[in-house]
């Protein structure tokens, strides 16, 4: 289980970093397209090298991902179809070619289509990763861990450029930062990460690792640096929790980690301190409460010193003037009294100095 935890944590961390930029640049679905086309890249590279363990397969897949992005953009540039349609056109076509080639010519090889499509973290640690005869741990851990370190270093080095290109591509181009170059570098990074995550989680679930941790982190912060750190933290903790749960229940690890990721996101949507649903609900209630208090003060202020004052500020029957229910009127006046805006004077409410100021401020 520890081995699988390491694999999933490495995959999750590796995906979270480029995922932040995919989410910010609204390109998550481009990642979807890329991950499906990797199969074609793997198959084509396999035709060339004829060795299922060759690193050429890794790079073939990564290149296929970048070619997909280029194709999608080429189609978009004809202005005959929109981005979403271009994506929905390109990846099923390339995926189909990959499936056809695999099922026609690769029946008896180690390229198992089922495993390629769904991934299996349970098996990923069986392969050992060795360089010059030295065992560097399970392959499923070493490769994504390496990709994670590489992306972290890249992001650290090119932080300013990435930030500018992501948030203001126009300005970046004007300042000579070459948004297109940064864009394709990023796409290559996404592609490499997807390939690294492939063994463990497959092309569909990898999307959850790209999209969900940054989306959750995005609800918690507005700063890019914190966003990156939070995404990785959310991703890794979901990976650990999900793997543990999967082993407890004896079910698929990758699917369970995705389920946990989804749960984390749902909790964030509910509980995020400023942008969560509960925070929004409380804020709305507070606003309404403040509005009611102010309405009461304005009402009292308007009739202050007029002949109608005695009638309009009587504690009994005030609800008729405000057009509220009895309970609501009591609630609002009690709160206004507690705030020190009004005082009870015999049968009447009287504005305090503070209450009068508040009413005036609201009136102007």
């Amino acid at each position, binding site marked *: 289980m520890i081995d699988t935890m390491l694999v999933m944590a490495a995959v999750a961390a590796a995906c979270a970093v480029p995922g932040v930029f995919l*989410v910010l640049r*609204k*390109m*998550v*679905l481009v*990642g*979807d397209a890329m991950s*499906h086309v990797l199969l074609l890249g793997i198959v084509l590279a396999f035709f060339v090298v004829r060795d299922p363990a060759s690193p050429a397969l890794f790079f073939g897949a990564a290149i296929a991902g970048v070619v997909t992005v280029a194709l999608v953009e080429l189609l978009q540039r*004809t202005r*005959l*179809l*929109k981005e*979403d*349609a271009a*994506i*929905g*056109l390109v990846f*099923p*076509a390339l*995926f*189909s*070619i990959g*499936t*056809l080639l695999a*099922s*026609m010519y690769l*029946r008896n090889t180690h390229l198992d289509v*089922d495993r390629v*499509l*769904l991934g299996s973290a349970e098996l990923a640690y069986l392969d050992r990763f060795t360089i010059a005869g030295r065992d560097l741990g399970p392959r499923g851990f070493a490769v994504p861990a390496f990709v994670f370190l590489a992306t972290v270093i890249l992001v650290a080095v090119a932080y300013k450029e990435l930030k500018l290109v992501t948030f203001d591509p126009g300005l970046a181009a004007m300042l000579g930062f070459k948004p297109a170059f940064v864009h394709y570098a990023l796409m290559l990074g996404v592609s490499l990460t997807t390939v690294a995550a492939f063994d463990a989680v497959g092309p*569909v*679930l*990898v*999307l*959850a*690792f*790209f*999209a*969900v941790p*940054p*989306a959750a982190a*995005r609800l918690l912060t507005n700063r890019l640096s914190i966003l990156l750190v939070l995404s990785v933290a959310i991703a890794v903790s979901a990976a650990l929790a999900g793997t543990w749960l*999967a082993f407890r*229940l*004896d*079910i*698929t690890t*990758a*699917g*369970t*980690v*995705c*389920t946990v*990721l*989804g749960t984390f*996101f749902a909790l964030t*949507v509910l509980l995020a301190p400023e*942008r969560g*649903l509960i925070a*929004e609900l409380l804020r709305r209630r507070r606003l309404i409460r403040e509005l009611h208090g102010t309405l009461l003060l304005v009402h009292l202020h308007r009739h202050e010193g007029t002949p109608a004052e005695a009638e309009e500020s009587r504690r009994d029957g005030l609800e008729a003037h405000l057009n509220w229910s009895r309970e609501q009127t009591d609630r609002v006046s009690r709160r206004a009294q507690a705030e020190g805006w009004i005082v009870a004077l015999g049968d009447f409410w009287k504005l305090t100095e503070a209450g009068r100021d508040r009413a005036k401020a609201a009136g102007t």
Partner: protein
Amino acid sequence: MIGLFDEPAVRTVALGTAAIGALAGFIGTFAVVRRQSLLGDAISHAALPGLALAFLLGARSPIVLIAGAAVAGWIAIALVAGLVRGRHASFDTALGGALAVFFGIGLALLTAIQKHIPDATRHGLDRYLFGQAAIMDETDVRVVAAVGLISLGIVLALWKPIQLLCFDPDFAAVQGWPIRRLDALLAALVVVATVTGLQAVGVVLMSSLLVAPAVAARQWLNRLGPMAALAAAFGGIAGFAGTIGSHLLSKDNRTVPTGPVIVLVATALVAISLARSLFARRVIAPAGATS
């Protein structure tokens, strides 16, 4: 090819995939013009947990399983719409995230099924993932045809507001049309079309059938109604020709899966249509003219 068509099994499958293609092409037109081409992709993946859950609860009949799939797919896109409306995520993030998370939940449920229910074979669920047109029978074809006719009826009955929703949702809202409900209805039609086709062409390839015929039709026509009709025709041609093609390509020692061939036929139709558009543009606006 004529000889092939005389084989009852091939004929049934070809008619079935043609019907699925026509249905997907027709409904997909509305998704494509509304820039929601990838809705089908998300729905077809998100349907998995519904399918698995229906199976876990004891359902074995295809209709109930399809209903489970439809419910899950619909919940997923309702969640996406909610997240976008509440500004909790952008459309692409919500769609991609929901797609993968639902799929992950589905896989987790699937493995649980295989552990705990002895009679569960992976067969039916594999069929969902990759599609298997070869085992369509006449009942399946009738179901697809019925779904198609009902969808057509709904779209025709609500033609005016649907047209408005496609091109100017704000104006439709001002006119007093309940656009949120219409939106949900169109989404539901996409859901039904998607899950109906799933078992024949599989998850990934179903998304293509929703997009490709519509994009191809868009290159020839500008009006929504004729476009939807042409897209249905393109989808039907892709389904029919793809099935026949995969049978022709299959030899004794290898079978060529039907789904991918259908997708490639549909993609070829798009390529021809795009080429025509590009050519027409060059004829109308020759070099040197401002485009």
